[in-house]
């Protein structure tokens, strides 16, 4: 980091390298011509609904949540792949310029499915070199030729000896090797930040650890900053320094991984933790209902229809139930660096963790509303408590 690297790193470790401020992304449903003329705007899906996030240089940040929570959309917006309705993304303090090319050289994305990402008709060499050619790089910082840059990227990604892979095609490689090619394709541009969307969920169990090991090694060797989007909190526990939990388009809890995963301050994080499989785990409470629907975001705290604190009556006991049902809220800093968007943690501070645990225990196996009624809209306001307390 202190050595005069050609990458020209200016920021100190821990400084904010990437910042997302009040990001909003809305997907619009189709509207017929007549309905459109009448002013009907159709269904609006608020996929990302006010995300604020700072990514620190050199950290591994995991963004976790159920499908539909907006985690991938947030990642795509950071990459400029997703038109945003409102909000600012800043890199090293400066808003993204209109021409994204120089920025995209510094921030590279690794997608979920390595088979779908790689062009089946290109050789591995062509795939890796394409990034260099797009950015008009024909020499490395030390004057290295293209071939050497490609070889270096492949061997950094663990494909050794690299020249053995030059002329092969993606279908000749295993799933793990393909994901390494994707990572090499990102590395060849010597990025500062890698955004990885579910980088191991399509891989075989025994290969996953290896790819994660590779990411951790790259972080240490190249001083990379890594944002990992995942649904797997076990993965977050293994690799992340900080964890952000998203629900219905917002970050509801963020903080150091140990704090968020071992002493969650938001009931949704607790619910997500409770469904991580482990021996005898099926007796623990499981939120019922389907993943929430971003076209129908409930009023008040967006989690309240499924929230064990509300359903168990704990919220009423604490005198916050009206707020839960009617008052939307943002993140509060409860412990240093540990933020939560919950009326219980706003009221109780760090003691909210115990209150959440108690509320969950009071409900027993069934947290939330009855599964039979789920698609009829438990997230958007089936009266909580109607069936849950049984």
């Amino acid at each position, binding site marked *: 980091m202190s050595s005069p690297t050609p990458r020209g790193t200016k920021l100190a470790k821990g400084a904010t390298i990437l910042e997302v401020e009040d990001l909003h992304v809305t997907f619009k449903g189709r509207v017929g011509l007549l309905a459109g003329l009448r002013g009907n705007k159709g269904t609006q899906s608020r996929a990302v609904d006010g995300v604020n996030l700072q990514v620190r240089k050199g950290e591994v940040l995991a963004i976790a949540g159920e499908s539909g929570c907006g985690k991938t959309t947030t990642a795509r917006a950071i990459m400029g792949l997703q038109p945003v309705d409102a909000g600012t993304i800043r890199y090293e303090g400066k808003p993204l310029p209109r021409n994204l090319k120089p920025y995209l050289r510094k921030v590279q994305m690794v997608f979920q499915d390595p088979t779908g990402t790689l062009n089946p008709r290109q050789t591995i060499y062509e795939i890796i070199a394409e990034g260099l050619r797009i950015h008009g790089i024909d020499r490395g910082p030390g004057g290295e030729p293209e071939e050497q840059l490609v070889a270096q990227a492949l061997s950094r990604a663990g494909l050794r000896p690299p020249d053995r892979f030059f002329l092969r095609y993606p279908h000749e490689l295993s799933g793990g090797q393909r994901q390494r090619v994707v990572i090499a394709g990102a590395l060849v541009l010597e990025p500062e930040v890698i955004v990885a969307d579910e980088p191991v969920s399509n891989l075989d169990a025994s290969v996953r650890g290896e790819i994660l090991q590779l990411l951790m090694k790259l972080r240490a060797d190249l001083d990379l900053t890594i944002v990992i989007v995942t649904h797997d909190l076990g993965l977050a526990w293994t690799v992340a320094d900080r964890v952000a939990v998203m629900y219905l388009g917002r970050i509801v809890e963020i903080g150091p991984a140990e704090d968020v995963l071992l002493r969650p301050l938001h009931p949704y994080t607790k619910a997500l933790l409770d469904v991580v499989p482990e021996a005898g785990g099926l007796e623990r409470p499981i939120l019922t209902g389907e993943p929430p629907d971003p076209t129908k975001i409930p009023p008040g705290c967006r989690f309240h229809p499924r929230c064990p604190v509300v359903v168990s009556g704990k919220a009423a006991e604490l005198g916050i139930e009206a707020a839960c049902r009617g008052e939307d809220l943002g993140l509060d800093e409860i412990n240093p660096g540990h933020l939560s968007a919950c009326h219980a943690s706003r009221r109780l501070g760090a003691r909210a963790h115990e209150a959440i645990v108690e509320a969950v225990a009071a409900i027993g196996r069934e947290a939330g509303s009855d599964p039979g*009624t789920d698609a009829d809209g438990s997230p958007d306001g089936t009266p909580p408590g109607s069936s849950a307390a049984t």
Partner: protein
Amino acid sequence: MSVLSLKDVHITYHTAAGGVPAVRGVDIEVAKGEVLGLAGESGCGKSTIAGAILRLLPSKTKVEGSITLDGEDILSMKLGRLRAVRWTGASIVFQGAMHALNPVQRVGDQIGEAITVHNQAGEREAKVRVGSLLEQVGLPTRRAADYPHELSGGQKQRVMIAMALACNPSLIIADEPTTALDVMVQAQVLRLMKDLQRDLGLSMVFITHDLSVLVETSDRLAIMYAGKIVEEGPATAVFEDPKHPYTAALAAAFPQIGDLRFRGNPTGLGGDPPDPQEIPSGCPFHPRCPAAFADCQRTVPELYTAGAGRRAACLLVEGAHTGAAEVAE
């Protein structure tokens, strides 16, 4: 008596490039009311076994050994009898609930079809049974009139489970039933299957690569690698104290939150699962095994006894090494 029994089963796929030995000598017993978890990576042969139990594999596939269901030999069964046994003797919950349902038929009719085709009931009676099946899997009866696209992924998987239960089979084979589902929905579906299994006294073969899911649902685990079972035993014991290095690697792929050994330290195996046409010599796992030693290249390990009710195919299992070395000489 075992509900399902596989003895020395070998399965070879026929391809243009020659035979592909997908399963190479597997013994499995599933007792009444027992859940067997079958784990392994893609290509290890676990789904092939599922297909073989109901003879659903491509016609040129060579299946050797014996497979019996409720005491009846499946492999020599006449086609008419086989049709009857499929779904009434054993049924399958497939991996892709999204694609296993007919998109242009109401889900109630699809479940009802299974009942009437097997002459279990007339049309009217079947309708009543469909209603109660849906309730059993936690869906309101009126959902019978829905088309698959009107249901979410978790609800479709519930319909698939209702269908599997339709003819009161004694065995249900669940092939990666929750892989495509979200974490929260996965937990709901797993609990539903476990509750139904317990209440109805069903036998189950549960197939997935996710050991942590299996340890929640299964009584016993069998771990497969390269077409063979490499470890078996009581689920919790195998998961928490694996005797085979491959099982240990699989278990570590799904770390428990709070376990400091995994914090900042992802563990993985080098290499990739072997090509079934080029199985390594000796122990097929030796090229990737962190604990391999010289003998592993030469000696093919048997399933050695490794504690109470447990067996593992590894030369490191106590007592196995010396014995194996003598055989090798």
